[in-house]
């Protein structure tokens, strides 16, 4: 079984508690069901023994449910109290915004205290509690990483929170768990749990501006990106936020309508878990996102020649 996204393969303490609840309910429910069916079979025998109704009504109808439900309530209350506190105190905070149909993820750079924006991948240090401060910018979404924690809704105009902790390094797939429109099914993301040192290195790289376009092909791709006005929705830090035609490197407005592409080449997938990320899928996506994810807000780009489009895809792949 694929354990990339599975409630049956918990990789964090909270998911393990939920996993245990599920099995107790499944197995307990099955045992009680079989017991009732056995009683039914006994009752349907041609020559049933006479019974004493009072014993069955009070015993099986009142005493048994009271005992079982009380035990379950006590046990589940005790176990639920062991779930991680949903609090940002003492935990690294990551902001996640649900959008139709992708995830904006923001970190605070410990070095510069500036915001680092990325998309569709939540990197976390392994073995540490991380608090996701979540909201949505359009409709209600819900963030769910089955291997790590329960679901939590993301509601426009409100901030909700979810504590995540991965106990072993790995890649855990998550997806939107609240129907949010046409492409709800293609709104996935990955949580990537890394040892602390690797996480710090990753964050430091993400804080850097985009890699320079140092070959003719890459320059052609970058120029095509700007000529197509992709910066109307996408930001590439170091490219779309400076205006080279002005003498000074003046900071211009950046857009957050679409995912930040400063380090898109470092991501595993594009279009929120729709395609693996390489120049081929990037080219296909740029040419016609509507064929791949119908209804997505990105328009097709039908007026580029093949070479220019390849250059653009190669440039984006280069932005590691």
């Amino acid at each position, binding site marked *: 079984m694929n354990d990339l996204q599975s409630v049956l393969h918990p990789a964090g303490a909270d998911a393990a508690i939920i996993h245990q609840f599920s099995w107790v309910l499944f197995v307990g429910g099955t045992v009680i069901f079989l017991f009732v069916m056995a009683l039914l079979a006994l009752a349907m025998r041609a020559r049933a023994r006479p019974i004493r109704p009072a014993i069955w009504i009070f015993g099986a109808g009142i005493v048994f449910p009271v005992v079982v439900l009380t035990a379950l309530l006590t046990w589940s209350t005790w176990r639920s109290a062991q779930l991680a506190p949903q609090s940002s105190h003492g935990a690294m905070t990551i902001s996640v915004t649900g959008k139709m149909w992708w995830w904006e993820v923001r970190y605070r750079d410990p070095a510069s205290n500036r915001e680092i924006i990325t998309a569709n991948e939540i990197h976390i240090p392994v073995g540490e509690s991380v608090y996701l401060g979540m909201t949505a910018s359009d409709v209600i979404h819900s963030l769910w990483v089955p291997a790590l924690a329960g679901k939590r809704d993301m509601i426009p105009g409100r901030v909700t929170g979810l504590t995540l902790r991965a106990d072993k390094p790995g890649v855990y797939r998550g997806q939107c768990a609240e129907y949010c429109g046409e492409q709800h099914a293609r709104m996935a993301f990955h949580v990537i749990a890394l040892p602390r040192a690797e996480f710090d290195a990753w964050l430091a790289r993400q804080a850097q501006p985009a890699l320079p376009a140092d070959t003719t092909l890459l320059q052609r791709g970058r120029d095509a990106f700007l000529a197509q006005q992709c910066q109307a929705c996408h930001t590439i830090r170091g490219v779309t936020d400076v205006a080279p035609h002005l003498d000074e490197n003046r900071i211009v407005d950046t857009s957050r309508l679409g995912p930040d592409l400063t380090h898109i080449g470092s991501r595993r997938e594009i279009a929120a878990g*729709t*395609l*693996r990320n*390489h*120049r*081929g*899928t990037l*080219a*296909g*996506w740029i*040419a*016609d996102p509507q*064929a*791949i*994810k119908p209804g997505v807000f990105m328009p097709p780009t039908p007026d580029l*020649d*093949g*070479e220019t*489009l*390849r250059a653009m*895809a*190669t440039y984006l792949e280069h932005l590691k």
Partner: protein
Amino acid sequence: MNICQYDRPHPAWRAGALLLCAVLASACGSQKNPSRVEGGDPERGRLLTQQYQCAACHFIPEVQGTNGDAGPSLKYMGRLSYIAGSIPNQPDNMVRFLQNPPAVKPGTLMPALGVSEQEARHMAAFMYTLK
């Protein structure tokens, strides 16, 4: 007399007919389509096509994915006369094209994805099953 009436055939005939059907069916099932590409395995090619996500741009029957339309449909790739509209659809050309499309057809949108020659052979073998 009802024309639909007929005598049930003798059980031996029926068993024989069933056996014949079974033999024919298994012969069809196990008959290996000889690959048109030397050293190419169509089934591995199909999986590679899926792995490289060619369906981001192409409609490909039997390949899971998105069925993009930036590139042409590959539904009949196996019996088209030309690759990319201009290169004779021969196995060697197909293998070269899959490895490095712009080198074979300058100006094409299709990028070189780092497909190895062996992988390209499998993928080409799969392409020739699409008819």
